[in-house]
């Protein structure tokens, strides 16, 4: 039997098109093509082969990178064609042998990341003047079809053989959990009985019926394949306004330090393994561009863009490589003026690069929302939780604010807190925080452009606890020790329930419902027991289920 709880793989989330192993990104005018050709032997683990364009985390990191770069480096691209480089197969989804040999924690983190990547595709479609065409040149099963339905339109080859399918339930005893069961109902809006049928036919549905049911948008015979892809991608591009090809190249994020001390330019992370705590600090520089043109001139060195990419990298590394860290103490430091200037820029429309950066900040904030760690914002002396950084504090589970006249701490409100970084639930963090008292949101936003002393901030409801200097250390120590002592599972469950008050969206359903069920199934003997379906797949053994319904 394959070993479970493999050691945490050391994964880097930084890559670039020249380093891709599994994808080729080509741009011709306003149409880009992302060709998936997963290398059998180049998986992250050595105990599985990435057959039939199946993917592991490494494949998805490249996809995520490509989507991100298309937004920044190729604003001129209006249609992105995602297609497969294998004969008769588009993509077979997540690699089953990889899942089987992974720990529960890795499975969960892997699925979370792939979900975020699919959402990034939709996010680019919504905000970045791009449309995505899934050109399924062969069968798209499981995660392969889930990738397709994250795109705007789906074209399937009509060779009387290629199908789209969700084999997870009938074959693997798990769910199409990368948004599959959510998008099929909420995005493509198929009838639920048809969804039920589709999700239980391992070999899927092909051709005309797939079209009739709305699983795909178009069919093309092999001989007309290229023409049809060209025609559709052209049409999709023409539906959007043109943009100049003045992209900004995303320079690599550099990290120095050691296993427990990560130093980026604007972000540091110090891990204390004994207390299962990480101190994550982000710092705004003294000087910054004052207008959009100046920001554009700094390109990917623009501090807020770089700082957020660094924060994102740190969060992803904490998730995947530091399962032992339970609590993140988040501090924001640096120039209040820089934040105020930058926020004013970020809030204004009119410059694609600035807008793109705003969207990246929003996505990075969501990474905090979706991380299975406890977050405390620590507003002690020298911190400057202002605007975008205040959003970071609001993303935390608690805010500890030092309230002592002898050690003044200021908190700043800017336009950035007024809704330019909506959460997955579609509303701002302030609105989510004050769901029952909307007037409290107004009260905070009335202070926009101001810095508030700790007393005022506390009165406005921005602090969870606001102890004075005498109590501060002990309060904080107790809160940390207590938190670190709780069941990590209960904490993850509790936090992900409490963080997303208010409206449901497809995104909240994916993380709150689909992922939760998937993660439950991932723990059940029917999936991962010795004779569970996931465990038996590809082995000589048949699964043996406990047929009791729970």
């Amino acid at each position, binding site marked *: 039997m394959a070993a479970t709880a493999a050691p945490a793989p050391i994964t880097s989330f930084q890559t670039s098109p020249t380093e891709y192993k599994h994808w080729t990104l080509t741009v011709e005018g306003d149409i880009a093509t992302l060709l998936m050709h997963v290398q059998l032997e180049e998986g992250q683990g050595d105990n599985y082969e990435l057959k039939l364009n199946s993917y592991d985390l490494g494949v998805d990191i490249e996809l995520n990178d490509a989507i991100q770069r298309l937004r920044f480096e190729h604003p001129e691209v209006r249609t992105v064609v995602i297609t497969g480089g294998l004969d008769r197969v588009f993509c077979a989804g997540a690699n089953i042998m990889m899942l089987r040999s992974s720990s529960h924690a890795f499975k969960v983190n892997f699925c979370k990341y792939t979900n975020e990547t699919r959402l990034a595709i939709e996010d680019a479609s919504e905000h970045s003047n791009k449309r995505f065409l899934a050109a399924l040149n062969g069968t798209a099963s499981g995660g392969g079809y889930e990738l397709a339905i994250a795109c705007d339109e789906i074209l399937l080859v*009509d*060779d*009387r*053989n290629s199908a789209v399918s969700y084999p997870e339930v*009938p074959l693997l005893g798990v769910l199409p959990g990368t948004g599959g069961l959510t998008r099929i109902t909420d995005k493509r809006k198929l009838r639920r009985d048809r969804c039920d049928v589709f999700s239980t*036919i*391992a*070999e899927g549905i092909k051709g005309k019926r797939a079209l009739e049911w709305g699983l795909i948008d178009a069919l093309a*015979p*092999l*001989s*007309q394949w290229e023409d049809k892809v060209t025609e559709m991608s052209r049409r999709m591009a023409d539906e959007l306004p043109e943009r100049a090809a003045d992209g900004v190249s995303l320079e690599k994020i550099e990290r120095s330090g050691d296993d427990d001390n990560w130093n980026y330019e604007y972000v540091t992370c110090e891990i204390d393994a004994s207390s299962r705590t990480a101190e994550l600090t982000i710092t705004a520089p003294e000087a910054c561009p004052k207008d959009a043109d100046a920001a554009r001139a700094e390109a990917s060195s623009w501090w807020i863009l770089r700082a957020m990419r660094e924060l994102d990298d740190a969060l992803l590394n904490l998730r995947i490589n530091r399962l032992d860290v339970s609590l993140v103490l988040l501090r924001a430091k640096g120039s209040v003026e820089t934040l105020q200037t930058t926020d004013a820029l970020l809030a204004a429309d009119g410059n694609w690069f600035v807008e793109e950066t705003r969207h990246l900040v929003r996505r990075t904030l969501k990474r905090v929302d979706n991380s299975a760690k406890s977050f405390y914002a620590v507003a002690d002396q020298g911190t400057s939780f202002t605007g975008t950084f205040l959003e970071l504090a609001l993303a935390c589970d608690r805010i500890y604010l030092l309230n002592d006249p002898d050690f003044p701490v200021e908190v700043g409100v800017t336009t950035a807190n007024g809704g330019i970084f909506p959460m997955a639930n579609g509303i701002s963090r302030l609105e989510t925080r004050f769901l029952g008292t909307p007037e409290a949101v107004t009260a905070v936003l009335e202070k926009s452009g101001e810095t508030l002393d700790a007393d005022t901030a506390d009165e406005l409801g921005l602090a969870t606890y606001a102890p004075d200097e005498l109590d501060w250390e002990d309060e904080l120590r107790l809160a940390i020790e207590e938190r670190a002592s709780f069941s990590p599972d209960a904490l993850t469950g509790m936090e992900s329930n409490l963080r997303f008050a208010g409206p449901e969206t497809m995104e909240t359903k994916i993380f709150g419902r689909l992922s939760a069920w998937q993660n439950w199934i991932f723990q059940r003997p029917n999936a991962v027991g010795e004779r569970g379906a996931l465990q038996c*797949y*590809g*082995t*000589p*053994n*048949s699964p043996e289920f406990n047929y009791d319904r729970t």
Partner: protein
Amino acid sequence: MIDYSQKIPNNVDLSHDKRLQRALEKWQPDYIDWWRSMGPTDFNEKEIYLRTAVSVEKNGWAQFDYVQMPDYRWGIFLQPAEAGRTIGFGDHQGQEAWQEVPGEYRNWLRRLIVTQADTEPASVEQQRLLGHTAPSLYDLRNLFQVNVEEGRHLWAMVYLLHSYFGRDGREEASELLERRSGNADHPRILGTFNEPCEDWLSFFCFAMFTDRDGKFQLLSLAESGFDPLARTCRFMLTEEAHHLFVGQTGVGRVIKRTAELLAEGKDPREEGAIPFEVIQKYIHFWCSSSNDLYGAEVSSNGANFFRSGIKGRAYEDRYEDHQALNDSYEITQVEGGRLTTEEVPLRNAMNEVLRDEFVKDNLKGVEYWNRIVEKAGLEYRFRLPHRRFNRSIGVYANHHFDLDGNIIDAAAFEAKKHEWLPTDEDREYVKSLMQKVTEQGKYAAWISPPPKGVNGQPIDFEYVRL
């Protein structure tokens, strides 16, 4: 109202099976349309001396008479049921064989049946123009016999789809008539069945190697716990044997002709025969292409099919252990450009187990050919390419091997390719020999006559009335 028992010979009580009648009412005319457009079109009006199966009784399965092919009575026959048959292997071993499709395996079974079924019309399509270049009436008749029986095998599979798989089965049955061999838009499912089969040497090689894959697939499905499938395949095997005979003796007669010329000190090319080297290259090509049909060496599907009792091993009764759960199989893999071996669970190696039988069976055919060469007093010996040679599917695909299975680099393969596989010139040469011979008792210059005719008829019998 159609009298089904007359039109469609069967032993499945078709005249009382409303469901099957309904399905066939729609499908049968489509099938005839398909035959008229995709079968040996230009010979549809001719009278052919064909064998028709009209019952499963001893005398019933081989009735000879002149028939126009579209009027051939394609029948539905299952080997008679064996009372109290139990499942012979896998996790359900010892349980009563299934008379209905078990719901949990419905999709797998359907896929197996569709994949098998798809090969039957495919080969008819591949061979549809060969009638124009037949080397004799005897061979022309054999070609058509093979064609109508492939058609009947399609019927047999369609019967299963219609009877046991509901609406999905009916749709799959229709699609079997929509895919086309070598069609750019909707090709046949398996690659080999999209290869053009434009000359008679290819046809004989196809019948020798590709139909032999069919034999072993049928043998393994004949073990199926799904009884109607097992019984259908058992009956099909009797017909498949004839196709293999056509292939093996066909290649043998080509070899014999060349051997005789060589023994007389003549140059085969000057006499319009086919040199041994060219025949050997065709053998390499068709044998390696057919090796692909068994699928990947390590296969989850193979394990699933075995454990679930829907597809066994050929000659399952020769094995002692029908669980195949504790044994392993040593697979040679390619790692970092070198061959290594890996133990995989036996159930996951079922494709390879079946390929072993195929290779063994092929060797017998090669021995038969070499006896012909030997008899002519020649040194030359035919051989099989190693199973790793020229593969497009499985662990050896995307690597290069020589005829003995040694791994070599792409450049070395390219340098030798023209010695190992048919070149354009070879194909042109073979094609240039393909001239129709229709005079009774006459045979083309590149093939020797058979030792005896069909059904006791002489070799100069009028097998086809042109």
